[in-house]
């Protein structure tokens, strides 16, 4: 395929020891996680858990020691991520900061911003939200209208963000905002900038929105003359689109884009022993899981080399979403509703609902396939 690279990668030599430590920790920490907690996995928010993860050095693992980071490799970090996901751990309180907000600050933040925020992310103390979507701007993100206007010493924000996962529990968001009006829709990618926004600042109101499973997962955020000092502009004024696109590559590149529903397979496997159709169905799922893992590791390897794998990440996310949505569907075919234990039933029910979000959050299936088509030279 022109220009698409998936070089095979192994996990690093440190992996077996690291994995053993993680498994012991997760077995202990996860003793009382309900099926619903596991079903929500990386959308689940548990500050206490994130602090414990931080204490063990598993947040900001690749970052410089000067900011509290562990100076480990991207592949070691990958091991930590996939172990958390396989266990269905509620990692959201540190996941976003570790995955994209922190790396953004490392690449483009000021020295002051790095010193202020990174060590607290590493400690599991500071939770980040992603401030992209707006009521009228979903897939067409660049059409966003929430604006930041110059004010003495900083900026004033007015407008609305929506679908912001866990904003009501988070401390900060990285918001993509319009800093100069763009009357011409063809120029909509210009005049956008990124800001660190304190979610407790005055003028911000956060309204949780119940999701279809009855959880307060995401929010609507209204900005009414919210002041942000100059010191919290991230990167370059007007370069927000380019910066956010690179950030999206990080957002899409991880193993969470294929592993969201794996805990269900682990939990249900032993209840499938008497089902004649189970071996073939399970084998097909595992063949895909193993292959997606190789593709996901290839993307992690590119991150390790400092390459931004925008297209490869889009492809693996799209294929991964298909897999993680198919998994509950296949298991539903196989599990006998009468004999299956309640805990497994419950996880299946929750995942049947939550799985809808896999191909929406972080870019819809259609948008990702558009990115692949562009890579093929069709757009």
């Amino acid at each position, binding site marked *: 395929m022109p220009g698409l690279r998936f070089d095979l990668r*192994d996990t*690093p030599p440190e992996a077996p020891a690291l994995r053993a430590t993680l498994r012991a920790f997760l077995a202990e920490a996860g003793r009382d996680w309900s099926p619903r907690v596991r079903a929500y996995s990386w959308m689940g928010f548990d500050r206490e858990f994130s602090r414990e993860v931080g204490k063990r050095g598993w947040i900001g693992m690749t970052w410089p020691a000067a900011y509290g980071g562990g100076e480990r490799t991207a592949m070691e970090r990958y091991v930590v991520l996939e172990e958390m996901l396989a266990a269905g751990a509620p990692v959201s309180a540190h996941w976003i900061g570790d995955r994209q907000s922190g790396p953004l600050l490392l690449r483009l933040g000021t020295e002051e911003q790095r010193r202020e925020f990174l060590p607290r992310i590493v400690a599991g103390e500071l939770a980040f939200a992603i401030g992209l979507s707006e009521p009228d701007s979903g897939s067409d993100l660049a059409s966003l209208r929430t604006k930041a206007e110059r004010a003495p010493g900083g900026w004033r924000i007015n407008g609305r963000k929506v679908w912001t996962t866990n904003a009501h529990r988070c401390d900060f968001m990285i918001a993509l905002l319009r800093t100069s009006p763009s009357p011409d829709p063809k120029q909509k990618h210009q005049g956008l900038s990124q800001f660190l926004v304190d979610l407790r600042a005055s003028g911000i109101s956060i309204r949780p929105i119940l999701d279809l499973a009855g959880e307060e997962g995401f929010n609507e955020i209204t900005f009414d003359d919210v002041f942000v000092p100059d010191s919290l502009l991230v990167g370059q004024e007007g370069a927000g689109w380019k910066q956010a696109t690179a950030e999206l590559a990080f957002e899409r590149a991880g193993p969470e884009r294929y592993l969201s529903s794996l805990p269900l397979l682990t939990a249900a496997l032993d209840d499938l022993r008497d089902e004649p159709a189970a071996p073939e169905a399970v084998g097909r799922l*595992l063949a895909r899981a193993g292959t997606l893992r190789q593709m996901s590791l290839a993307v992690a390897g590119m991150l390790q080399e400092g390459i931004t794998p925008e297209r490869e990440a889009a492809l693996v996310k*799209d294929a991964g979403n298909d897999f993680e949505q198919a998994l509950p569907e296949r298991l539903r075919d196989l599990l006998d509703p009468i004999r299956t234990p309640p805990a497994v039933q419950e996880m299946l029910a929750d995942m049947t609902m939550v799985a809808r979000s896999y191909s929406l959050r972080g870019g819809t299936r259609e948008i*990702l396939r558009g990115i692949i088509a562009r890579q*093929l030279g069709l757009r």
Partner: protein
Amino acid sequence: MAGDADEGLRGILIEQVDRLLADSAGPAVLRAAERGEWPETLWAEVEALGLPLALAPEAMGGAGLGWEDAVAVWQVLGRHGAPLPLAHGMAAAALLGLAGIEPPPAGFIALALPGEAVAWGRRAGHVAAVDEGGQVALHDGAGVEWRRAEGAISREPADRTAAFGTPLRTGRLPGAEAARNAGALLHAALIAGALEAALDMAVEYATVRKQFGRPIGAFQAVQQQLAVCASEAAAAAVAAAAAGRAADRRGLEDAGFEIGSAKVVAGEAAGTGGSIVHQVFAAIGFTDDHPLHLFTRRMWSWRDAAGAERVWARRIGEAALARGGDALWPDLTARNEGRGNA
């Protein structure tokens, strides 16, 4: 365990094979093959490159090439529609080597797996016949009685063995699974290559064929379908490469999970991807005249060779069910653990 060429050497090898096939193969040669014409010159050329014996140990006249390298070569071969049974010959030489039998120095060695039709059987100088228990027998091709295997979608010449004479040599593979694993690996790699070729053809066509005043590739419905095909092609290629690497690491007989996964993923990709490329080409792709079917028919045949998806998925699933839910994730991660990147 087989060594593997470093990335640079592999690149050179692949380029050589690609150039050779680009110059000497093509639709006419594929059509001739379907009429049963043995590609004499092409075989001589791959022999000149030392390819048929490349997987055999150096002490037996081979090059000690690894399985991951072989997968890369087979994928290129698949990209050209595999006009000659080079993959089968290479696998046969490798299996003979594993069984301690020195492969004959020249000519095509056919691979006879239990229950499977033998690609180009009656053209073989020698036949490596493997039974269910991992016993390998080397036969002189002249002493084997063949009957034609009809009905393959690919129309590639294939025969079934009616009777063998006395073997020249016999030996035993390190594991009974080694031979069927080799068969699955080579067909997964061939499919990955053929799908890549079919995808390239479809993408190219989508940029030149115009309807409603626009290239059809400008329509989002077409773009989205080709994106799916690209994704399947990538998955098939990655799965095949990973399977080759696993065979290098752990031995062919112990790489059943990765090889089976590659066969399942490549087989599914052949189904999904094959439908998409034909949809994009529409009527012209349904003609005998158009070369698309030279690739898609082969893909569909290779899907069924050496164990269809159903067969391999069942094996993988049975093993996982026997190990239980608690072992599922640890088993998946243990397979390529802790080696770092060489």
